[in-house]
């Protein structure tokens, strides 16, 4: 674990991408194969099967540290990470150990076969053999969520540097459903034909947000416009008679959307489509809130299938007849996609996402203004001669979203943040006027700069009216502009309203509290934009 801990520290101590890549490439060049494989696995979101629950971990750690469980629970949100909280809380280790990362992973994997008392003894023993950083990493192996500022892209680059293979080739090898417990570094990275895996997706190409006026993009005839749907990005793979559906987060979500199983009846094997999964009322997408209950479920009850059926609105064709089309220009890919989907019956779970015709940017701007009527978030702009790249690359794909909805609201409660912002007040509750009363209607956590959070923190400390545990009621003095993406009725909320993606877009220090918006205003917005 020492080498892996040193790697972690090197990466964690710097904000420079080049330094991180260098540290990681150095590790890939030196480490033993099992450690390399597990490092790739961890940095791509995989981890060994969980041998103990986080509840057990908390209880054992509190007991070892000699503090009541509630005190650990109170410390956790402040530290922001359970693995770290436990690592910091435990008494110092009394022993040292030079075993490598893969040893500790195998140790964790072997726990599954043991009874709970033995598991506990082995975990306590491990804690006593690891220093603070190693312990944190060990806990992370159990709790998962290995986010340390290493993106898959950065890791792939480091691996390319260490192996001399091309980044794109490696990116493809690392996609898909491989399991570090079932494969080897050699099979995954060094072997010739890892593409044999039928379910393997292509890396997604991601669009940038368009902030400049679209005129800067050049001639309108070089661009294709589509609606930007408010659904889930998905890649549908049809190979060898079966289908696989991948989310943008590289999760295999085939089972969650059984509607798409019928795709194999309509399309030939060797087809890969990129598109948006949306709930569909027969003629247009339904609101995102109807899709939400389907996202978390691994199996879908019949009722939900009937109420919120999904389809894939396809906008790109990555593979046809088993051939990789990504280097072909969008113009050609799109023509083949349209031809492929043209003859499909109306009840097929697939449709081509329509293209928006326009001859001038102003025409498109006008069309975009009506995006909400189409249940879209804006429009997508794609350069007609562009290949299908991987990752987020500037230049060829742009998302041109509608401006968010906004409301001016008064801050009435404040709570301290956690993790990165543990010592600042960052979590606020906002209210609008209803006559002379302030009615809370949303919380928001993000959108301010650290300097602004610091300023408001100082103010909160001096203007607390009452405390309810960690929550402070503050003097209603500050108005913030709250931006959000959607609004819907919610009987669970006091205001009867719930917002989608609320955040603080501006601190309206220029605005007196009396000029904040009213509940009436929110209700009008609900009537206009509500879903």
């Amino acid at each position, binding site marked *: 674990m020492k080498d892996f801990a040193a790697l972690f520290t090197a990466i964690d101590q710097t904000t420079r991408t080049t330094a991180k890549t260098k540290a990681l490439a150095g590790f890939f060049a030196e480490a033993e194969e099992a450690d390399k494989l597990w490092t790739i696995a961890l940095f791509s979101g995989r981890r060994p099967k969980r041998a103990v629950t986080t509840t057990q971990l908390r209880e054992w750690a509190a007991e070892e540290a000699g503090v009541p469980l509630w*005190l650990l629970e109170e410390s956790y949100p402040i*530290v922001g990470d359970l693995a770290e909280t436990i690592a910091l809380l435990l008494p110092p280790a009394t022993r040292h150990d030079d075993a490598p990362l893969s040893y500790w992973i195998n140790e964790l994997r072997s726990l599954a076969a043991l009874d709970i008392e033995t598991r506990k003894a082995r975990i306590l023993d491990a804690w006593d053999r690891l220093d603070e950083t190693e312990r944190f990493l060990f806990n992370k192996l159990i709790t998962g969520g290995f986010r340390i500022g290493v993106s898959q892209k950065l890791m792939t680059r480091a691996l390319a540097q260490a192996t001399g293979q091309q980044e794109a080739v490696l990116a493809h090898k690392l996609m898909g459903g491989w399991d570090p417990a079932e494969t080897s570094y050699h099979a995954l990275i060094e072997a010739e034909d890892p593409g044999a895996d039928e379910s393997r997706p292509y890396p997604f190409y991601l669009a940038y947000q368009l902030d400049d006026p679209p005129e800067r993009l050049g001639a309108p005839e070089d661009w294709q416009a589509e609606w930007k749907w408010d659904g889930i990005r998905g890649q549908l793979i049809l190979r060898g008679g079966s289908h696989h559906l991948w989310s943008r987060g590289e999760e295999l979500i085939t089972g969650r959307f059984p509607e798409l199983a019928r795709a194999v009846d309509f399309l030939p094997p060797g087809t890969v489509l990129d598109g948006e999964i949306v709930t569909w009322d027969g003629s247009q997408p339904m609101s995102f809130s109807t899709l939400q209950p389907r996202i978390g479920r691994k199996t879908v009850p019949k009722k939900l299938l009937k109420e919120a059926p999904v389809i894939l609105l396809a906008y790109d064709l990555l593979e046809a007849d088993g051939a990789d089309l990504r280097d072909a220009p969008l113009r050609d890919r799109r023509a083949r996609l349209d031809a492929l989907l043209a003859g499909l019956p109306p009840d097929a779970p697939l449709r081509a996402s329509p293209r928006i015709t326009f001859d001038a940017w102003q025409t498109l701007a006008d069309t975009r203004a009506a995006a909400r009527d189409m249940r879209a978030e804006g429009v997508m702009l794609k350069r007609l001669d562009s290949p299908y790249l991987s990752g987020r690359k500037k230049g060829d794909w742009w998302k041109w979203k509608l401006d968010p909805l906004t409301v001016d609201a008064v801050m009435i409660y404040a709570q301290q943040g956690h993790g990165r912002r543990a010592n600042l007040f960052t979590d606020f509750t906002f209210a609008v006027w209803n006559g002379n009363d302030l009615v809370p209607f949303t919380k928001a956590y993000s959108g301010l700069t650290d300097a602004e959070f610091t300023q408001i923190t100082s103010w909160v400390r001096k203007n607390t009216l009452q405390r309810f545990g960690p929550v402070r009621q503050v003097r209603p003095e500050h108005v913030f502009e709250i931006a959000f993406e959607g609004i819907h009725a919610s009987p669970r909320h006091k205001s009867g309203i719930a917002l989608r993606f609320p955040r603080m877009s501006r601190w309206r220090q220029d605005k007196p509290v009396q000029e904040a918006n009213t509940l009436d205003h929110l209700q009008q917005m609900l009537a206009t934009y509500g879903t």
Partner: protein
Amino acid sequence: MANVLTFRPEGIYCPAGDFYIDPWRPVDRALITHGHSDHARPGHARYLATHAALPVMQHRLGEITAEGIGFGETRRIGAASVSFHPAGHLPGSAQIRVEVGGEVWVVSGDYKTTPDGLCEPFEPVRCHAFITECTFGLPVFKWRPQNEVAAEVNAWWAANAAAGRVSILGAYALGKAQRLLHMIDADIGPILTHGAVEATNAVLRRQGYPLPDTRHVAPDLNPKDYPGALVIAPPSALGASWARRFGTRSTGFASGWMRLRGVRRRRAADRGFVLSDHADWEGLHQAIRATGAEKIFATHGYTEIFARWLNSAGWDAEVVPTEFGGEEDEVVDSPGEQAPAS
């Protein structure tokens, strides 16, 4: 138990002596624990602080009507007798003991229990009620011995110097900066200081606190003349254009908050050194036990959690109902909260 001290919107108040301790609104008579801006505020009619704390206060607050008192010296104010005792937080910092009719209350101010070699070491004071800070009142906060942190800073500095980089270390101008100067190995290379740090150095040197030689980064100073230098500056200067003159550099930041990875990453410095002038979890307990107090009031920091813990562990603890503004030295650590450079 009689209320020797009460909590008013202006701050901690002693009715028997008609004075306040570290008040945050202007009052007639203020007893001040130490010179940090959240404790020593401008606008009071009369100040009382230790002889050792006064020069910095006068430097920061300008013309004030102030009286000095020695550590351990007792003074009668109305029906109260007061005395000041070392808090180990920074040079001159004190806890304030107030006795009225045989009942003793102590206000800790900010403190740390482990000696740093520069300031007067913390001295436990027996009392009936103890008003304690708890900036780091969570069991995850544990400090390593000062010599280990010093070795870390020295190694970082030496490695930077060898690689031709300047080391810039962010530390609060009063307290942390001088503690660092005192604990590092001054033989590694030249030490440069930001104006805010150097001004405080000058005051403390005149008082006789031992600090190594430093050179003020004046506008005409050419950084190239000081290869391998360590620069000590307030945290706000690290990200500012001020730091750019040093060319290739590595930045570090020393604070108790560096114990938390999330905060460490927010600072976006290359290195975070865990070094605090406040007591850690164990230090708070040592201090509380040593007072023998039956009543504890928690202020500054994770007050609710800390008080709840103390109650569960058998003390009679409460949260100080009034919050005294922002913290200068550890709680708020952004550019906007710095003491003015002079």
